[in-house]
């Protein structure tokens, strides 16, 4: 690999500088400065209305900041998995056709992406016939098609049960290990997601705290937002890492 290209590959994927966003006079984000590095899994946690989705959409380019800037690495390829894709029942769509949006891909690439995402035999099925977990994996497969440098997931496991979302996040980790892409995601499922993250950013309109899952879960700002129960659940989850049955942190 030529040194120049390698130099580029070491650069942060995305940096935001002093971002401010408001919708209809309501300040959603202010003074947000975050960095996403190649190959790391970063999770944004925060209460409802804390601006998590807005931050993701900002980085994906769907929202423009009122102040500050978003610096993307030149030529950055983003794979985006939306929060929920409401497919109108009048719109017929096979899995295979969906993967051709917006650009056509050949069958081998499509199958490889489906396999990567863990839904191989689904190409001919209607999207509307898929289960919640399969649907999210097809969204993931589509996001993987253009070999993204950065994978963005917005509460991608909404509607999945706990074993389902744990399996989904394990799949994300496997994808990251194989493709070396950075991952930026938002999740409500603190205990599951924190164990799969390299770094956690706790957001509440601004960045409250950030760091490794251990650091963040013991930070006073985090405890103020989420209580102390989650830290215990995190430890529990780690303890039974390959079991899918664990306690709900809200219990």
């Amino acid at each position, binding site marked *: 690999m030529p040194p120049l290209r390698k130099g580029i590959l070491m650069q942060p994927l995305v940096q935001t500088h002093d971002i401010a966003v408001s919708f209809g006079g309501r300040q959603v984000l202010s003074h947000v400065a975050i960095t996403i590095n190649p190959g790391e899994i970063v999770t944004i946690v925060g209460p409802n209305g804390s601006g998590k989705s807005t931050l993701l959409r900002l980085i994906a380019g769907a929202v423009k900041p009122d102040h500050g800037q978003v610096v993307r690495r030149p030529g950055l390829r983003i794979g*985006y998995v*939306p*929060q929920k894709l409401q497919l109108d029942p*009048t*719109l017929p769509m096979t899995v295979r056709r969906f993967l051709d*949006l917006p650009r056509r891909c050949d069958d081998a690439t499509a199958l490889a992406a489906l396999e990567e995402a863990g839904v191989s035999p689904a190409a001919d099925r209607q999207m509307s016939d898929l289960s919640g977990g399969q649907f999210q994996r097809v969204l993931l497969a589509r996001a993987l098609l253009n070999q993204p440098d950065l994978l963005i997931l917005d509460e991608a496991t909404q509607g999945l049960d706990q074993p389902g979302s744990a399996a989904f996040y394990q799949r994300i980790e496997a994808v990251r290990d194989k493709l070396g892409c950075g991952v930026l995601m938002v999740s409500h499922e603190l205990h599951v997601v924190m164990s799969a993250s390299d770094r956690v950013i706790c957001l509440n309109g601004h960045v409250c705290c950030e760091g490794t899952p251990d650091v963040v879960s013991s930070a006073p700002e985090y405890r103020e937002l989420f209580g102390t129960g989650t830290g215990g659940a995190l430890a529990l989850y780690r303890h039974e890492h390959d079991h899918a049955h664990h306690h709900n942190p809200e219990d």
Partner: protein
Amino acid sequence: MFDDFLVRATLAGVAVAMAAAVLGCFVVWRRMAYFGDATAHAAILGVALSLGLSISIFAGAMAVAVIMALIVAGLSGRGYAEDTLLGVLAHSALAFGLVAVSFIPDVRVDLGAYLFGDILAVGKTDLAVIWIGALAVVGLIAWRWSRLLMATLNADLAFASGIHPRREQLVLTLALAIVVAVSIKVVGALLITALLIIPAAAARPFGRTPEAMALGAVVIGVASAVLGMFAAYQLDTPTGPTIVSVAAILFVLSNLSRLLWSR
């Protein structure tokens, strides 16, 4: 052969049905039916203005349809529920249009021709304009097909692929205005939405992909136009409503056969 008014009428019906069917798929997928109504009703106001100013009906209807569509797009999401807003605008535009027509002196205006269409009065120039408009709509949608689909599926997903959903919405708005303008003589302002929605809805049970559904909608739309023309001629019924009736029958047959098939 263009000298035969029946041939001209049939060709006009085929063109309008084809363009409306393709666009209609997006109208159905994006739940824009009421939006179509508002634009079509506004066209009556455009007709009144065209008659008053002695300009081309196509131009007048299209201009007002575009303005209406832009107003609706601009106002949506600002206080009123979308269907309330569209209901207010659609029926106000129709009412103002009907009032405006009554002010036009010296012109004996047959309003029915614009409300329900007067396909048998389509002249050679009309036919040319209708085909150009219809082909423009089909071409526009074919050109932006993938982007339109992405914008229809999910706005954020579209953005992440570098597609601007609002721009695609504008493309559909423009296509809708063209379809309304070229349809007004064929099926009339009150039945345009029917030609948009019924063929697309009738094609839904058989489509496995968006493309298959659009193709099916075109076949059903064109069949409705041809069969409707024939039936209107045989039964001596008004042409526009007959075409829509045939489309409605095809819709019922399509859903019935699907029901029997899946047994």
